């Protein structure tokens, strides 16, 4: 089974482009109703299915996401 992972979203940088949503294999991400100070609806983690694959972070144009994964 995949290892467990987690992410940190720097919501002030997020522009709500949803590219990370597409990239996540486990539908961990969604777009919030709230906006950040730039007026963007930002990405949020909606479950704990993250496996720390970093796909979301790798495709994020704004380098918003930091990824962690439990060590073997």
């Amino acid at each position: 089974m995949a290892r467990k992972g987690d992410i940190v979203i720097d919501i002030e940088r997020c522009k709500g482009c949803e590219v990370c949503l597409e990239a996540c294999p486990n539908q961990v991400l969604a777009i919030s109703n709230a906006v950040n100070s730039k007026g963007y609806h930002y990405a949020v983690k909606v479950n704990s299915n993250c496996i720390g694959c970093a796909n979301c972070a790798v495709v994020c144009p704004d380098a918003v996401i930091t990824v962690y994964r439990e060590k073997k």
Partner: protein
Amino acid sequence: MADSLIDPGNLVYKRTDVLNDRIMHYCPGCGHGTAHRMLAEAIDELGIQSETIGVAPVGCSVLAYYYLNVDMSEAAHGRAPAVATGIKRVFPEKYVFTYQGDGDLAAIGTAETIHACNRGENILIVFINNGIYGMTGGQMAPTTLEGMKSSTSPRGRDISSMGNPLKMTELVAQLPGTYFVTRHSVHTPANVRKTKRALKKALEYQKLNKGTCFVEIVANCPSGWKMTPVQSNKWMEQNMFPFYPLGDIKVPE
């Protein structure tokens, strides 16, 4: 519980220090950001930050110097390869790259691009092909596809009056001065990773003094294309890649 994972020991991905922490001005979902990051990571991983000098001409990425944490020169529209030549010729030991849009590289800068490649300047040219003039508000670029709409081809590009979309990358691959010519994208994790590998390779080759390395990145421009970022990536796969197929075009033997 999950919180316990957030610990430096478990870190698998964070933004590279070769990007500073300014918020980029790009539109949501724009490929420029990802391309910047890959270039920054490549520089980071090669440990050449202090020996790298970049050139970004006008285009949406004109402010690349504001985000990439390396010494950089802004260049006039289309002239980045000439500016980079000037830099590389006085600093042959440094790593020099340009970061150019398709309007820049393939329209006004055609001569500079062809001749830098033909001279085999030992530089890396990063070519962001989003099929449009992003910065100026979505006009037709030399790379705009047949039938594709833009603010200056509102009924779609009409080849007979506006000419053909130009495959600059295939052209420069013909020139003996180029050493490594390849085409990538940054719209999926796998493609992003491939792009980084290509950029790293291209920078490494610069040490060999074998000629110009040319990395095209086919990218989206959600604003110019008038689509959401996710739509634009789909559209890119369906329309751009058939005409601009991804993959290596010229590789060192």
